[in-house]
């Protein structure tokens, strides 16, 4: 009995010492999935042994909610923010909580998003296209309209734009290109609103969905691991750059700058390209068996979006979308 | 023909023989007790009569009707036997009022509503529960609960009432009162009673006849007075009340204590049937020993301790290494601890 108690005390002392979560480190909030941010982290830590690097990966919506709550409470954890919802960055810039930094590597960046003052800098030109399950779909879809066909009835998925920045971007892009009727038609075909942008791809891999609007590198990663997925770019490419920004007042400014420099470096861009998403630097070679389109070609085909207004209309857009797609109606 | 007949009844639980070849007959209107220490098989026997246990061997008849038979594999279900039964833990249903408890057996029988009403009222009157009729059992005392159980058991006017240690959860005063109540009701309705208890005073006070049991076997079936005054064997003697068992050896035809042969004799004769063994036991009850001034009796001893208990005075007298317990009424001459005294045994019972 005494021994047991002693063990309990010891263990809880450990617990309390382990509970010292606070400490000097670089914390990155990102919507990038593990396969990408994990590889980048490894490379970054290798070059910068002195920096304790930590990241929190979640959908853009969650990240923003988290940051809002942190601002409310006055205790900021985030040092660097990197996700795919460009409008948020404009918004944060307006609110004055971003630290401007023009990286020496910024001059190599090519992207639809331009921010010369350096409040944020695009790090990747994320693309979204059609992810489909090759076990069930023998003829690959070629256009967004293909997804309205009966064979996709009840089996086409779009991630929840409230949870995921890329999902929001893709909704805006498609609505702009084809009008809201597109989504109304989707609904008629019993399209599904999923959760995160990763989950719709997983659901497609499983066959629960037959196709979805898939993020390039998420799909690529699963295909690499053996998932029976196909990935095709219709004529109209949804391109959503993912900018990185440094939070104003971060105590780890030097480390944050180092990380931004790193992200824009050739080494990191190569990792990004290898992970299956489009880099922002043209001097990076795409991997051989890639499903990605040629970067320049892709930028040409991209649906042009006005990121500055997207944030103002976000709530209304999401509401409209949810009203159309929300199940049970 | 007796009312209740048990013939060669045997019951085993695994390796243990709980009841061993029991034969018994109980008359109509008789109050019959099964008396014995716990584990002697008395409750098992009762439960076989009630129908909760089947038999390994033998058969049971009540009122000339066969109700259990191992041979014919025939067991009348307990609910069809129409006995009354009262359990030790009261077993009154806590979710029914007193009235509902007592009326339950009548309702089950499908008695007409107004008859239920009147018969239940009558039963409640008989057991002094009229005032509590609409209360729930948990608002009542132990004695009242036991009376509900009694009223309920008697509601259908059973020919046989089975009582399983019904009073052991009551305090002594209530126990005595309930005993009288059971007896009164029995006189009034003339049912037979089988009463299971381990308390010899209770068995004696209530019963017409007692069966003393041990290890599933009958030791003695007799009237209370006979069981007390003429126990069939040493076990019955010891079980039925406080007792002294004094080991004696013969000397000069007299019985003396082995450890203190010179202290005098316990008896001036030694029964010839034990002479061969060279030793015997004299059994006597504490009240049957005469406590006399020194020199007046056969055996000399010293009062080791004395306790004045009001009605009785309790002595322990040592003779050699034997302690003899003696109880005397308060009106008899008093001895003090440490005094020398003499003992006489006017009514020795001999065992080997």
């Amino acid at each position, binding site marked *: 009995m005494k021994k047991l108690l002693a063990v309990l005390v010891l263990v809880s002392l450990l617990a309390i010492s382990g509970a010292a979560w606070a400490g000097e480190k670089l914390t990155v909030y990102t919507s990038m999935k593990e396969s990408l941010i994990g590889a980048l982290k490894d490379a970054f830590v290798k070059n910068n042994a002195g920096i304790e690097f930590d990241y929190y990966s979640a959908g853009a919506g969650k990240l923003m909610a988290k940051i809002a709550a942190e601002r*409310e409470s006055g205790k900021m954890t985030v040092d660097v923010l990197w996700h795919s919802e460009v409008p948020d960055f404009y918004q944060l810039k307006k609110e004055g909580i971003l630290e401007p930094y023009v990286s020496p590597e910024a001059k190599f960046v090519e992207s639809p998003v331009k921010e010369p003052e350096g409040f944020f800098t695009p790090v990747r030109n994320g693309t979204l296209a059609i992810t489909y399950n090759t076990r069930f779909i023998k003829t690959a879809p070629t256009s967004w309209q293909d997804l309205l066909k009966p064979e996709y009835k009840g089996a086409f998925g779009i991630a929840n734009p409230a949870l995921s920045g890329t999902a929001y971007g893709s909704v805006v892009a498609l609505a702009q290109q084809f009008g809201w009727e597109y989504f109304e038609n989707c609904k008629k075909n019993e399209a599904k609103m999923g959760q995160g942008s990763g989950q719709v791809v997983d659901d497609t891999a499983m066959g629960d969905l037959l196709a979805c609007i898939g993020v390039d590198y998420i799909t690529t990663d699963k295909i690499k691991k053996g998932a029976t997925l196909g990935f095709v770019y219709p004529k109209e490419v949804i391109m959503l750059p993912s900018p990185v920004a440094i939070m104003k007042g971060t105590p780890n400014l030097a480390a944050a700058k180092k990380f931004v420099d790193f992200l824009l470096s050739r080494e990191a861009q190569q990792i990004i390209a290898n992970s299956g998403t489009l880099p922002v630097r043209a001097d990076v070679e795409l991997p051989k068996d890639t499903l990605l389109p040629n970067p320049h070609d892709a930028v040409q085909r991209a649906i042009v979006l006005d990121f500055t207004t997207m944030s103002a209309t976000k709530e209304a857009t999401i509401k409209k979308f949810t009203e159309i797609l929300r199940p049970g109606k | 023909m007796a009312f209740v007949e048990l013939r060669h009844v045997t019951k085993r639980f695994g390796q243990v023989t709980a009841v061993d070849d029991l034969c018994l007959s109980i008359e109509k209107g008789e109050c019959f007790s099964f008396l014995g220490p716990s584990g002697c098989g008395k409750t098992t026997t009762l439960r076989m009569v*009630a129908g909760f246990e089947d038999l390994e061997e033998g058969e049971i008849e009540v009122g000339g009707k066969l109700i259990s038979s191992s041979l014919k594999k025939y067991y009348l279900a307990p609910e069809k036997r129409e006995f009354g039964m009262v359990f030790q833990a009261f077993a009154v249903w806590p979710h029914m009022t007193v009235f509902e408890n007592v009326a339950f057996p009548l309702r089950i029988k499908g008695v007409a509503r107004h008859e239920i009403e009147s018969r239940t009222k009558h039963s409640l009157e008989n057991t002094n529960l009229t005032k509590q009729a609409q209360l729930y059992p948990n608002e009542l005392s132990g004695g009242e609960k036991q009376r509900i159980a009694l009223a309920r058991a008697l509601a259908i006017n059973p020919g046989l009432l089975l009582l399983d240690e019904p009073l052991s959860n009551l305090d002594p005063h209530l126990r005595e009162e309930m005993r009288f109540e059971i007896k009164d009701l029995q006189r009034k309705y003339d049912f037979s009673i089988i009463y299971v208890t381990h308390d010899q005073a209770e068995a004696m006070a209530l019963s017409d006849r007692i069966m003393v049991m041990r290890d599933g076997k009958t030791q003695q079936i007799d009237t209370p007075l006979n069981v007390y005054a003429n126990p069939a064997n040493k076990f019955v003697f010891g079980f039925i009340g406080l007792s002294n068992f004094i080991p004696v050896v013969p000397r000069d035809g007299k019985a003396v204590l082995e450890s203190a042969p010179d202290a005098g004799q316990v008896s001036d004769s030694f029964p010839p049937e034990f002479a061969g063994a060279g030793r015997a036991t004299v059994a006597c009850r504490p009240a049957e020993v005469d406590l006399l001034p020194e020199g007046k009796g056969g055996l000399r001893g010293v009062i080791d301790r004395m306790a004045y208990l009001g009605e009785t005075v309790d002595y322990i007298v040592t003779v050699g290494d034997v302690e003899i317990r003696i109880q005397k009424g308060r009106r008899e001459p008093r001895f003090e601890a440490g005094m020398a005294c003499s003992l006489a045994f006017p009514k020795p019972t001999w065992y080997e």
Partner: protein
Amino acid sequence: MNRTGKFGIAELLFVLSLLILIVIVALPVLLIFWTSFVVDGHFNLSAVVEVLTKPDTFEALKMSLLLAACVTVTCTAVGTLFAWLVTRTDMPFKETMKVLFTIPFMLPAFIGALAWKMLLSPRAGYINQFWMALFGTRTPLFNIYSFWGIVIIETMYLFPFVFIQVSGALERMDPTLEESARIAGAGLFTITRKITIPLILPAVVSGALLVCLYSLAHFGTPAILGTEVGIYTIPTKIYELIHQSAGSFTAIRAATVMSVILVLSAAVILYTQNRVVKSGRFQIIAGKSVRPTVLKLRGLRTPLFILCIVYLLVTVVMPTVTIFLVGLLKTYGLPLQLGNMTFENFYYVLFKWKLTKDAIFNSLYLSLGAALVTMVAGGIISYVLVKMKVRGKWFLEFLGMLPFSLPGTVIALGVILTWSGRFGINIYNTGWIIFVAYIARYMAFSLKSNSAALEQVHDSLVEASRASGATPWQSLRDVVIPLIRPGMIAAFFLIFLPALRELTTSVLLYGPTTRTIGVAIYTLNEDGETVYACALAGVALLLIVGGEILIKRFFEKKKRLDNGGA
């Protein structure tokens, strides 16, 4: 208890208890009510009205109640049936079955939901796939993403509440209560209807109310199975509000209004339960240990036995196996074949991935720490509640009741309101806020276990030591604490194990680096990292089951010791 006027142990413990309960429990609740009803310093019901009249929230409220009601009914039916089967029939292997039926209790419901999602999602669920392949149909056998899907999953994991209560009541029930009815002429059917069922009714009701309480406040299952198809309950709605409205105060207020509804429902349920349990009429007096009347199932024996086995296989074995198998898959969506399997995921979540490693350690630290602190604090409070005669104890008793009626969601909101700077302490986004929330959440367990232990310590044991010359402190040290130690250790485990798999509270409180196991599994699933979610869930299951086995052995050993001589 001391020389008059001295500030002794009694006063110290009283004040300490008061402080703990006020700071940890009362303040958060108070702030929730305050936030809901007081706008700019004035009492104002408009926020409440606004939240309640919004179709979204109204729907969520309706859904919560409906869900809780259905789950309660199904759990009651299932739990009572099985309890009756294992106590009152001649079912084979009854004792073993009795233990097996409590296993679902150990398994976290949200992991179950995850497993069932993989088994019964409409097109891809393994069972549905098999079904569709077998019959060449395109309609799935069952769509788990539905109201009834949630009901069924919650039933699977919550029915032990009823089962344990009812089987306990059936076992404790004096068999002579039924025997006397037989003697009175009633057959088995009548006895069951008129005697047995009314007598176990309080146990049934009490178990059912626990289920209702739990289901009402449960986050995991409706979150995993409901949100995708637009089924929102109060806890999932609160989660959505907190996470999507960017931390604005309006969102928090809406969430607090809904919390108030949860607290009030919980209070009503607990009050009812207390009344039922306490109503003396239904006390079942335990009698001599005679074998209870056992119903011979005859021809139904084998079918019912098979039913039990199948039920256990379906609720326990199948989901567990699914979790592990999917955890072994290279990527989600591959067929379950050996060639597609690898231990890589387990290795990855256990040793490589910081997120999951952190989650495991966070959970371990948090639950160990919370269990220890709560065990001690609960011990102190129980001591004051059970043993001491101090003025103002009624207030402490009132506060002591509070933890019992606090659903996890409410606690989370309360600690956010209390601990994000309002009183000068800001621990939002750190592990400490989860720590504080766990203490509040599990205080009820500790109070229950410690009070029960203390009630066993008769006053005379302490008085005997005082009379032997021991001061109050010495009595406490040498007599009271050693005697309640088993109760305290029980409290420790009663807190440690559930905290290890906690989701409802932590999901509202986790920060970037403070995910718990539950949160990690939940968010991995949400993010489409299904195989990692399963691997981590597998690890969690091993931890939990291992822990349960450890306690079982500890308490069995103790029980043997206790029963050893007497």
